[in-house]
């Protein structure tokens, strides 16, 4: 339980940082969704999610993270079940079937899958240490653990989440430790697979053909954004215009023409960073990524100070996951990453993403507060 000693030792700096980022996010959502009649109901919904998220973050401090680790496989299985469920009874949107309706709320199981996979992998590698690192044979079971949700997510199809699953898992494996030879083989085979996809035309055509038109267009637009600025490259172009036109000081709160006049698509979800950039300028974006940097480095520090393998792997897995979210989302907004549609942690509109991020951060805090404790 949360005793007084742990409460006094809570890293209030990190908690404050999380809250500042979440508040900036709330103001951005307020601006991006503002309607002629006043603040949008979406804003109040987001306010509710953030409030719940903060509470959940504190609740996530209570159990021992080892208990969480014990339930990791169960959680993983549950999220697989939900992924299957979403395929059967899910709600479609934007050409993909991603949401589960729970009363008035739409729940996105793929968001949960990211967190549960991270936790499950952390437990797996924590319980199966290998001296001198893992070789390829040792990675068979974790590989299958990644592959199952990956197939479901691709089936939705949700390219962004699939990418996140792969990259997050890869980072966890790297941190867990690979034999040099295995790492080399993995990188090489990855390179071969990627070049096969790009260079061998039957393979490429097969994969290309299996993509939805909007996905094909997004990839095409990333390769040559100027080719059709009003068609497929629209998202990326409008986002770049929004970011760039914010200049140094920004256009001011709710004064961003790109976002206020709806030139910017997905402005309260995937492109929320562009709204901040347009309204707050480089000063705003600079502060924003600095806040993320500090938060993530504190997370790395928590992993470093963790007292056992599970703690280190869980913390670094969570940090990896959040950092990838941030980099891919912001990279997308500034046009250096293809438009794949991932939320900006703590900021983008969306209940599932907000809640899972707060849970993840709560676990991170949990690990950090238990660094002085002895368990054995």
């Amino acid at each position, binding site marked *: 339980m949360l005793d007084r000693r742990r409460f006094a030792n809570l890293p209030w700096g990190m908690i404050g940082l999380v809250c500042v980022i979440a508040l900036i996010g709330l103001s951005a959502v307020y601006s991006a969704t503002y309607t002629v009649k006043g603040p949008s109901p979406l804003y109040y919904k987001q306010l509710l999610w953030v409030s719940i998220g903060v509470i959940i973050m504190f609740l996530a401090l209570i159990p021992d993270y080892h208990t969480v680790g014990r339930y990791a496989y169960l959680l993983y299985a549950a999220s697989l079940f939900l992924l299957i469920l979403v395929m059967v009874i899910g709600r479609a949107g934007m050409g993909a079937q991603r949401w589960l309706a729970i009363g008035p709320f739409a729940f996105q199981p793929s968001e949960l899958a990211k967190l549960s996979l991270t936790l499950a992998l952390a437990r797996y590698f924590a319980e199966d*240490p290998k001296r001198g690192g893992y070789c390829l044979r040792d990675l068979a079971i974790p590989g299958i653990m990644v592959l199952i949700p990956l197939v479901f997510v691709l089936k939705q199809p949700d390219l962004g989440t699939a990418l996140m699953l792969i990259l997050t898992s890869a*980072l966890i494996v*790297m*941190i*867990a*430790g690979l034999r040099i030879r295995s790492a080399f083989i993995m990188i090489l085979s990855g390179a071969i697979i990627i070049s096969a996809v790009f260079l061998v035309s039957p393979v490429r055509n097969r994969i290309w053909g299996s993509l939805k038109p909007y996905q094909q267009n997004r990839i095409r637009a990333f390769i040559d954004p100027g080719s059709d600025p*009003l068609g497929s490259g629209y998202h990326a172009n*409008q986002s*770049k*215009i*929004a*970011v*760039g*036109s*914010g*200049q*140094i000081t920004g256009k001011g709160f709710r004064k961003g*023409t*790109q976002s206020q*006049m*709806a*030139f*910017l*698509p997905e402005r309260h979800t995937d492109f929320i960073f562009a709204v901040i*950039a*347009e309204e707050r*300028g*480089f000063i705003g*974006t*600079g502060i924003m*990524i*600095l806040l*993320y*940097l500090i938060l*993530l*480095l504190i997370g*790395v520090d928590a*992993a*470093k100070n*963790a*007292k*056992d*393998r599970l*703690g*280190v*792997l869980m913390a*670094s897995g969570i*940090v*990896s996951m959040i*950092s990838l979210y941030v*980099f891919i989302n*912001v*990279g997308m907004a*500034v*046009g*250096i990453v293809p438009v794949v549609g991932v939320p900006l942690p703590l900021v983008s509109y969306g209940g599932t993403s907000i809640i899972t991020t707060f849970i993840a951060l709560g676990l991170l805090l949990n690990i950090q507060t238990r660094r002085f404790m002895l368990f*054995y």
Partner: protein
Amino acid sequence: MNQQDSPVDIQRRLPFLAAFIILFTLILFIRLWYLQAVKGEYYHDQAESNRIRPVKIRPPRGIIYDRSGRPIVENVLTFDVSLVPEDAQDLDAIIGKLSTIVKLPPESIRTALDDAAAVRTKYEPLKIREEAPWDEVAFVEAHQEDLAGAIIEPEHRRHYPYAGLASHQLGYIGKVSPSQRKQEQTDIGLLTGQGGLEKVYDKYLRGIAGRRMIQVNAAGRKVKDLGIEEPRPGTDLYLTIDLDVQKAAEEALGERQGAVVAMDPNSGEIIALASHPNYDPNLFPRGISPKDWVRLTNDPTHPLYNRAIQSVYPPGSTFKIIVALAGLESGVIKLDDKVTCRGYIQSGKHSFRCWKKGGHGTISFHQAVVESCDVYFYTMGERIGWDRIAQYAKKLGYGSLTGIPLPDEKPGLIPTTEWKKEKMKDAWYAGDTYINSIGQGFVLVSPIQACQMISAVANGGYFYRPTLLKKTRNRETGAVQVFAPERVNRIVLDSSALEEVRKALAGVVSEPGGTGHAAQIPFVTVAGKTGTAQVIAQKVPGRKLSGSTQDHAWFIAYAPVDDPKIAVAVLVEHGGHGGGAAAPVARRVIEEYMKNAGSKTVR
């Protein structure tokens, strides 16, 4: 803590994770600096133009008036049903609805959209139904809510109230071709001059498009009006054409093929210019139907052809004016020199006939012109020498362009001995001199050249570039630009020689035995020369000629004799004799003009 649970080996790798995070943060930081600080200005401009959409407002085209201010080409306000596909929420639905309103198959609307795809810019309206009837316009206006994307465009439609009248100089307007569009950056629905004066003076007539600036959101929906830049209407043209004379010329030509050019010999102003058959320019602004186009272009009588400037004919006996001037000036022809005409002349094995069977008997210069004796001019032509005649012909403008501001003028041909050697690989024979001296053989002249030549004879040797534009008037400012006559040349002609030729030309119309009797007008003296241009080389005795083998009839004239105010050239294709077929046309034209001479000035 047992060995197995030691996290030390994992923690060794955490600095790499930190480095990874710092590296990516740095990349984002640099990228943001680049976008927001370095390129900020550029994206700022992009954002500005992003939300302001200009909507073009087409200017009304300039009106064309005749010399006394009567409109010959005007604009009529009509309404078109157009489609802005970008504004449609459901394009298929809107096409379906529109197709029932304007009663067009949906496929044809879709085809029109596809066809325009390559040239249309975003938000440029595409015309679905031009000149829509009132009920369709009213329906679309009333149901704007359900018909997002469909708009009504008011349009100043070009209208030619006299249909075919003067069609060849007025020309027509039509859709800009894709290549023109690329060159001039015009918008898709713009109609520009594609022929005649509509084309030549398009820069005056077109006007400057206005713009309505509207603020839109990403869906293209209008948020508010930001202001309007009114279109500048095209400049009005006042032509030198006299509507009454033009009508008279065309009525006199009637159903016959041919051309009439009437000019003020003292300025080069074209009073009337007709070419028959003509066409109705009203067919074009709506976008001519393929059927009509095929009919016009495949018509064996070539109605699109401007015969007054694009067709060249043997000048026939009208050419004798040149020979007469060349002979008198060079002193080869003496007024009293007599030639005996027996109806033919022998040159080697060939004999060359005079048009008058049995001949003119003994004849001198004046009578030879009046009665158009061929034998006299065969003889004199030989004495003068062809190259000297050719030199005079060229001096009088034959073989070169008059410079009338209409497209595709043809220069005709004045042959020389040199030319024949080069082109035909043959020597110039006496027979060539004979037949070319009476305007047959190789000589080719256009009606406008003949009119310019007779003008110079009438005014004492001045050459004016034929003009059609008297002045322009800006409808907004009222600013007027007057175009002065442009004298291009003065040829020095011996005044006594010129006097004799003029006297003879007056005799052609007024004296007994003159070939141009039919041009006599009670209240004004006329001087002129008939011509009959053979279509086939030599007449077969006894064979009746008809239809397309019949001769072309020429009459070129000026009036009044003492103070020329109008010069006319008439050509009637396959009309027969110049005196019979062409002279009456010239008479009608001169009569109409002289009736009101002086009373009609440009307002």
